[in-house]
């Protein structure tokens, strides 16, 4: 009886202690959970190196993908890669971003360059400040950049030429007239585009069958400000005679041309040879508005850029050229890359 009584008393004491413990645990747990949401109290991963990607078209799927490739690869190698300008409200040009990067004493710059003198000079400045620069997609060939990661531009031009001649062949059989081909190039000269357009020109001129049947024009679009590209392409469609084939050499041009063709109701009249495999472009192919596009392994592009910077850091030199693979996507193999409904962007 006594023992039972004592047991009861212990039971009460245990109950009280349990109540106190529960409360304390609830409070402590609560504090832990909610103070973890405090950004300052959380520990962020720190990195040894800080590279920046400098491009003027950050938002495009192409560069997003390149950035992702670079970033993921960097994170695995203790490098934090930032798409410079991403978090800043103002919009800056590549040159300004370069100056920012240099002033910020970054450890490396991945640059979508162009052949301008200013760019050349900025790359020199960076190299003087011991910041290695790797150019991607578009080179600044005369600069002191350590490496260039390119799309196989010459191969790309061959691929475009083949496509053009195929389409032209069909049109000539039907109508027997000159086929007008417009290659959209940007106002600021870039090595990539130059190589491609030159390659296309060369291929057509060398072709016995088509050299006299295809007239190739380089249409320069203004990219001096944010929306100029789109306006330039619209201007193209306002003209009296439309080209039969439009070759686009970047993602933005492709998307704009695709949209313009739909808006101006020129589907079927204008053939589009696109560039890059964004969802919108793939959708265009699926709807047979865009004839074909070039899929570029953008992830690999980002990875190669980071890899180049890392090996330069490590051994002091690196391959001057790195080439990224390309794949042609048209309506024969579109299913491998795109299924209806998986699209996120719709052409309005």
């Amino acid at each position, binding site marked *: 009886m006594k023992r039972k009584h004592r047991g009861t008393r212990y039971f009460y004491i245990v109950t*009280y202690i349990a109540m106190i413990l529960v409360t304390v645990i609830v409070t402590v747990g609560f504090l832990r*959970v*909610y103070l973890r*949401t*405090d950004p300052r109290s959380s520990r962020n991963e720190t990195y040894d190196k800080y590279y920046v990607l400098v491009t003027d078209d950050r938002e495009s799927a192409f560069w997003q993908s390149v950035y992702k490739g670079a970033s993921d690869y960097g994170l695995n190698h203790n490098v934090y890669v930032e798409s410079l300008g991403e*978090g800043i409200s103002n919009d800056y040009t590549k040159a300004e971003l370069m100056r920012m990067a240099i002033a910020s004493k970054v450890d490396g710059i991945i640059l979508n360059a162009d052949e301008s003198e200013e760019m050349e000079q900025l790359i020199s400045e960076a190299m003087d400040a011991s910041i290695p620069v790797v150019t991607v997609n578009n080179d600044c060939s005369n600069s002191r950049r350590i490496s260039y990661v390119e799309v196989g531009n010459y191969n790309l031009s061959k691929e475009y030429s083949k496509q053009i001649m195929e389409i032209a062949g069909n049109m000539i059989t039907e109508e027997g007239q000159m086929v007008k081909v417009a290659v959209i190039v940007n106002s600021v000269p870039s090595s990539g585009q130059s190589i491609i357009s030159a390659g296309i020109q060369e291929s057509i001129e060398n072709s016995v069958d088509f050299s006299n049947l295809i007239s190739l024009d380089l249409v320069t679009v203004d990219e001096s400000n944010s929306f100029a590209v789109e306006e330039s392409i619209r201007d193209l469609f306002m003209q009296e005679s439309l080209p039969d084939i439009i070759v686009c050499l970047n993602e933005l041009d492709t998307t704009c041309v695709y949209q313009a063709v739909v808006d101006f109701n020129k589907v079927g009249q204008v053939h589009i040879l696109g560039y890059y495999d964004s969802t919108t472009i793939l959708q265009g192919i699926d709807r047979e508005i865009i004839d074909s596009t070039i899929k570029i392994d953008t992830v690999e592009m980002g990875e190669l850029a980071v890899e180049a910077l890392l090996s330069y850091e490590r051994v002091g030199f690196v391959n001057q050229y790195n080439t990224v693979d390309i794949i042609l996507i048209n309506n024969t193999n579109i299913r491998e890359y795109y299924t209806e409904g998986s699209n996120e962007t719709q052409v309005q």
Partner: protein
Amino acid sequence: MKHKFSDFPLQLKIAFIYVLSSVLILVVNMSLLIGITTVSARLQRTYEDNLSLNEMTKALSDVQSSMTQYLNVKSSDSLEEYYISEQTYRNLINELNVEVTDSNADVMQRNIKYMSEEYLDLVSQTVEAKRGRNVEKYRQRYELATEMYNFINSYIDSLNTRQFEDNSKTYSEISRSLRSMQNISLIVIIAVIVTNAFAIINYTGRLIRPLRVLSRSADEVAKGNFDVELPRVESKDEIGVVTKAFNKMVVSIRNYIDQIKENMELERQHKEKELMMETHLKDAQLKYLQAQINPHFLFNTLNAGAQLAMMEGADKTYEFVQNMSEFFRYNINKNDEIIKLRDEIELVNHYMFIINVRFAGEINFIKDIDESLLDADIPSMIIQPLVENAVNHGVRNVEYDKVITVSVKRVENNVCVSVKDNGVGMSEEIINEILSGNKKKRTDSMDSNGVGLDNVIERLKIFLDSDDVMSIVSEGKNKGTEFLFYLPVKETDYV
């Protein structure tokens, strides 16, 4: 020796419960309060990094404006101002993060810091060039510095916006958490209070239980039930002491009651014994009296029989002897004390026959009897002694016709038996003497069968269980005497 908790005084126990639950509530409230205070303190600090960024913007703009001022007017004031603001700004940027982390804000801080250093460098170059009057250089440096200034401003703005967004998110999260914490606190407090209340109710119930048991037992005892189960003494506190005392008291009372009961039982047995003895004595007396009757009477009758045999022939003798034998037979057989009235009347018949033989038919014997009442019970030898008394003392010496009447009739619910003579009568004095039993027995009378009136009355008293059993009526000298007594009617008489 170690004290057990259950042996502590009641006050201490109750105080213990109070202190324990107070401590509980205190700890619960304290911890909840700490939680809430911490979270609200955090809430207040939410926007402080925005404030520090604003401060930085202001310092930066001070640097820029003081530099511009200096370039404009080259005053020593503005130069001093420049130095002060430059130092302020440098101090501020020194607090910035320089690590590269996956937090965008950290990276932005790092970039701001490096760009600011670059900027300050450019500014100082500008100022130097201005001092050295190198117009070309300071203009160029000024351009660069201003561009850098814009970059930094833009960066700080963006960081500010970003942190503001983050902080707003944090703020709303924390304030939400604060709200839910308040709710949880409320629930916890209510739960703790309810549990505490249950525990206290339970515990005090346990504490009071012996008291309740005690009060139930006391109530039982108050109702007179002393056989209650004695409450167990579980503790040495006040309740234990009271319980122990109560138990002792109950045991004592029980013992007293047992003792009283025992005494009463003894007394009762004693009384019973006394009564038995009395009864036996009476019985013995009766037996003795009855035994006394026979020899006298037998003697007298035998005398009468002898006289008759001398004077007359066989017939009458026969009848006489017959009656005698009946009479004796009755005396022998009906000696079992309670008999039927019928038998008693029969006995009187025989007696009167015998007496009339003795008195040569002088006595006129009249019976006025309701036959239906003859089954009534009566002790033996009641009427015959009365008749004998009437013969011996009533009519024996009168000169006129002697009449003795025996009547049996119903008076209300009783059987009224009357023995009446027309003899000498009886004075009031004698009647009272007889009824009170004080009349001296006349043992000298040889004519009696030995059963005196006092005996008859005594036995009737015992039989009827009453003191007033007989009435004697006499209206005066030579007006006769009537003996009256009442017997209960036997139920079968009605049938």
